[in-house]
């Protein structure tokens, strides 16, 4: 008989080892899925995880994409991880990401022919504000009316998508675009563009911001009283209340930080890789970032690695659909599977698995 025995404190070894174990298990299960789709599983896994980085033919294009895709994921996931640690579930990052892009691009487009270098920083601020504002709705409803933040933040994603569509077809439509939906191409306007900073690396301002945010979050969690309060509120809510931690303040702060970062990610995306406000410029980074946050064990440095790995599955998935004809939906299922395995093997962190009957227990 298998039996679970609670560990007195979480195992440090398994805390580090579970993400790796989960990735291996996902590769096996994913391989089975690819085999069912009639593809050679070994070839498919190699195309996803190896070829984007090392294949002589494709790596030149794929490698820079790694940072392009990892940047927004890390930026959003780091923000989300703070809330998740405190038991505050902002799962509407996709909506905040869209609103950041809409606000930021809106400021840029409103100033359109003006050419000064202050426009881009202004747009970043507007993007952060847009995401922050969108996250404040569930945050304030939570603190004022105790409304469930999970449902509100998620429902607002759908609202944001309609706002995006209305903007792309209405006020922000390119007047010189011949009636096609979508705004002016921001990445081609020098004062608004978020260009590749070092050619061939994929490094843009969003990636720089992501790295900065990871370091800031690490310092916050290790050295700052707010980081301590976040961890305390998540692990022992009662103790936190006795220690004078205000749950309302934490909700406002955590939701605000994650919303602002998601908004910034949206702005960097729409001025760089995506280029313009269009009906579907958003590609679900806000949702994938939830997986990244868990894969990184809600730890800033872990999220950095997890973001890169998740970016790799995106690029590898594109490559696999190009070379092997693997359906692009397969990679989404693959990412979901990763989260399943991650949650499953997390058991090993908090419990010991014992063989034998119950009698030996106390």
């Amino acid at each position, binding site marked *: 008989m298998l039996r679970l025995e609670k560990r007195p404190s979480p195992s440090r070894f398994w805390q580090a080892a579970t993400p790796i174990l989960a990735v291996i298990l996902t590769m096996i299960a994913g391989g089975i899925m690819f085999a069912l789709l009639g593809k050679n599983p070994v070839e498919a896994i190699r195309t996803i995880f190896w070829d984007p980085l090392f294949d002589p033919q494709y790596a030149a294009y794929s490698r820079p994409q790694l940072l392009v895709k990892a940047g927004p994921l890390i930026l959003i996931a780091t923000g989300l991880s703070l809330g998740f640690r405190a038991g505050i579930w902002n799962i509407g990052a996709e909506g905040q990401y869209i609103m950041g892009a809409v606000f930021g691009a809106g400021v840029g487009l409103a100033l359109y022919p003006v050419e000064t270098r202050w426009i881009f920083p202004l747009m970043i601020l507007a993007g952060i504000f847009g995401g922050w504002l969108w996250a404040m709705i569930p945050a304030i409803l939570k603190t004022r009316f105790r409304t469930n933040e999970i449902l509100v933040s998620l429902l607002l994603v759908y609202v944001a998508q309609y706002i995006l569509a209305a903007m792309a*077809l209405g006020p922000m439509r390119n007047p010189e675009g011949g009636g096609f939906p979508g705004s002016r191409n921001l990445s081609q306007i020098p004062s608004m563009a978020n260009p590749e900073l070092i050619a061939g690396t994929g490094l843009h301002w969003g990636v720089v911001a992501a790295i900065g945010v990871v370091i800031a979050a690490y310092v916050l969690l290790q050295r700052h009283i707010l980081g301590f309060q976040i961890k305390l509120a998540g692990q022992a809510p009662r103790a936190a209340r006795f220690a004078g931690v205000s749950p309302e303040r934490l909700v406002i702060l955590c939701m605000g930080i994650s919303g602002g970062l998601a908004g910034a990610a949206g702005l960097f995306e729409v001025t760089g890789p995506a280029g313009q406000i269009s009906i579907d410029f958003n590609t679900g980074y806000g949702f994938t970032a939830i997986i990244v946050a868990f894969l990184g064990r809600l730890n800033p440095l872990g999220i950095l690695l997890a973001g890169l790995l998740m970016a790799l599955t995106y690029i590898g998935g594109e490559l696999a659909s190009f070379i092997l004809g693997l359906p692009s939906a397969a990679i989404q299922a693959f990412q979901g599977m990763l989260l399943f395995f991650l949650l499953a093997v*997390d058991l090993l962190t908090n419990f010991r698995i014992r063989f034998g009957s119950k009698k030996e227990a106390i």
Partner: protein
Amino acid sequence: MLGDINPAVLIASLMVASVPIILAAIGELVVEKAGVLNLGVEGMMIMGAICGFVTAVATGNPYLGFLGGAVGAAALSLVFGFLTQFMLSNQVATGLALTLFGQGLSSLIGQGYNGVKPPLTGTVPLGPLADIPVLGRILFDHDWVVYFSVASIAAVWAVLKYTRVGLILRAVGESHDAAHALGYKVIRIRILAIMFGGAMAGIGGAYVSLIRVPQWTDGITAGAGWIALAIVVFASWKPWRVLLGAYLFGGITVLQLNLQAAGAAIPAHYLSMAPYLITILVLVVMSSGKGRASLNAPAALGQNFHASR
């Protein structure tokens, strides 16, 4: 403009529009009454939508389609059940994973089904009843799932209120330790509840792809699962209020669609937001003030059970 809208047709179509939400919400209500918070309703619905669609197209039988949808979604819910009940994973995170995975898997299965027409589900022939003016159009001119959805509410209400099964289920949801001490199999009961919730969400999803739309496109459920979750809170975990909430929501959906069709001055995109915004508003009203919905929430909601001795 509003005068063009026929109230009888409006009520009849709001009953149709709310069927997926009723089914998913009443399933989730049972799950939550057992003390489990499954946020994967959206993922289970969309799995039900595609499994139902594929089965119906393959067999040519819409009834088998609904069965297929129920089985597909229940199978997916079993993954959630295994992870949360045996691997003791966080229910919020696992529910989200279920939605993300369900969306990916459904669009994977649905490849090649875009533009395919599913077999038609006819209305239940109620003969002369359907010819009664106004009332006939509202009540007696529907497909079987509309009646099934109302019947399922009545059944869940009766079972929870009057039967031993209902009592045990509620006991498990209120205090799993006490239920365990009394000798009830907490994990087994919760797994069964989760599967019931999955099957109901699956039928709701199949209704979207087989009758309401009827065709397959990625992301076809468009947040209905999340709205169903909100309706459970709105209903304060009471079955008949699920019906009320779902009809309210269905009414708003149908009204805004009618306004769009009638060429209202408000652009379509803003009207389409209405159902989501009203749902948020209703959540706020329900969770604040005297009638705080959360007071009625099952006490063990969202907590994992591990028998330590």
